[in-house]
């Protein structure tokens, strides 16, 4: 179960990763090559957990990695993209459009999430202030009074 912030961070990394891969494919490189090159080139600025997840494991191929990710990517809502990419890759179809579409969709999702975060933040803050700061005020105000009135 991912925390909301972890989910957003993972999505941001995935967007940047797909953008990098899309640019490589657009320039005529193969998906498997682009995949490794992006991880090698910009892996240092991404979360280490994300890079480990995307790496080819145990000498596997890209098809194996895509299948693994489509079954076990931490955010279930993004597994669909890996399933689509795996199918297209195995059929030998063009990948550029699919990868770009994935990056753009995830990007829009992130922007919607940010909008939602900004819209609901004041309400959530007020709720926390009421929950955590009103009780101490009441406690420090009424405890001396209750003691004075004989409530031990």
């Amino acid at each position: 179960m991912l925390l909301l912030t972890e989910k957003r961070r993972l999505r941001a990394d995935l967007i940047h990763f797909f953008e990098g891969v899309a640019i490589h494919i657009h320039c005529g490189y193969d998906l498997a090559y682009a995949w490794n090159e992006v991880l090698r080139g910009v892996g240092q600025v991404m979360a280490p957990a994300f890079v480990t997840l995307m790496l080819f494991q145990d000498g596997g191929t890209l098809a194996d990695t895509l299948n693994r990710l489509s079954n076990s990517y931490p955010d279930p809502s993004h597994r669909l993209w890996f399933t689509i990419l795996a199918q297209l890759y195995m059929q030998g179809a063009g990948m550029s459009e699919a990868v770009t579409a994935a990056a753009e969709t995830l990007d829009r999702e992130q922007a919607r999430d940010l909008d939602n975060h900004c819209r609901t933040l004041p309400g959530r803050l007020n709720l926390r202030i009421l929950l955590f700061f009103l009780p101490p005020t009441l406690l420090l105000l009424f405890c001396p009074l209750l003691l004075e009135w004989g409530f031990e």
Partner: protein
Amino acid sequence: MIGFVLAGGILPFLICWGISYSLKRRITSSTRHGRPGGPQLVSLQCSLILASALLGAIIAGYLWGRPIFGLVLGAIPSLCGERASSLWLFQRNHRKVEEASVGFLTALQGLLKSGIGLSSALFQLVESPQSTWAPFAGLLDASLIRFHSGTSLSACLTRARDRTSLPGLRLGLGLVQMAYCQGLPILPILGRTLEWLERDLAARARIRDLARAAWAQLAIAVSLPWIVFTTLAYFEPGLWRHFRESTQFWPVVALALSLEIVGAYSIRRCACFC
């Protein structure tokens, strides 16, 4: 006691802090010849703490005959104040660099479109006295200066990437460096980087504004119970004394404090986007 604290701790701290703040502003705003927060600043911080402690010891020794208290009282506030002011200055400086990077990269895009190579475009922009992108140009300049001594452009770009804090910019510079090494076209990457950067900056500014309001609310919320408590103690000293002498005093204060700490942590987590 108040006079002792004022003479031994606060006065030396204020004198030294005032001097160091103006020096730090000069150091952090001139990123051209060194990284903000580098050895220059650390030595300044250490000397400020030392000077503040020594001044505290001299004043306290002269006025009260207890230099050791002045030493401690002079060092503690300067340590805390130093850390807070440095953090604030660094954040302000990083923000300036981030904002300047958009203008710089737009100009770089323009130069690349007109057919100039990446290295000459970078040097042309870094050396131009354009104030709008000066903070970012200064940061790049500090990395690109090694190019003249034989370091490859790719290594210089990697160094510049590692010196920035904005994730979008780090990634953008990383992609530009990767494209340069692979011989890929840089213009589409730069275009996408600019889009991310602008969006990233707008999002961060929005979150910062919201967080600022949240911190203001938090400051009021944290101090309110204690203001109420102090007011009660001031106007009803008998009530306060009775409560102070009871067994419930420390548990109630501890409970109020723990609730506030949990609340502050919860608000901090809540204001963070990712």
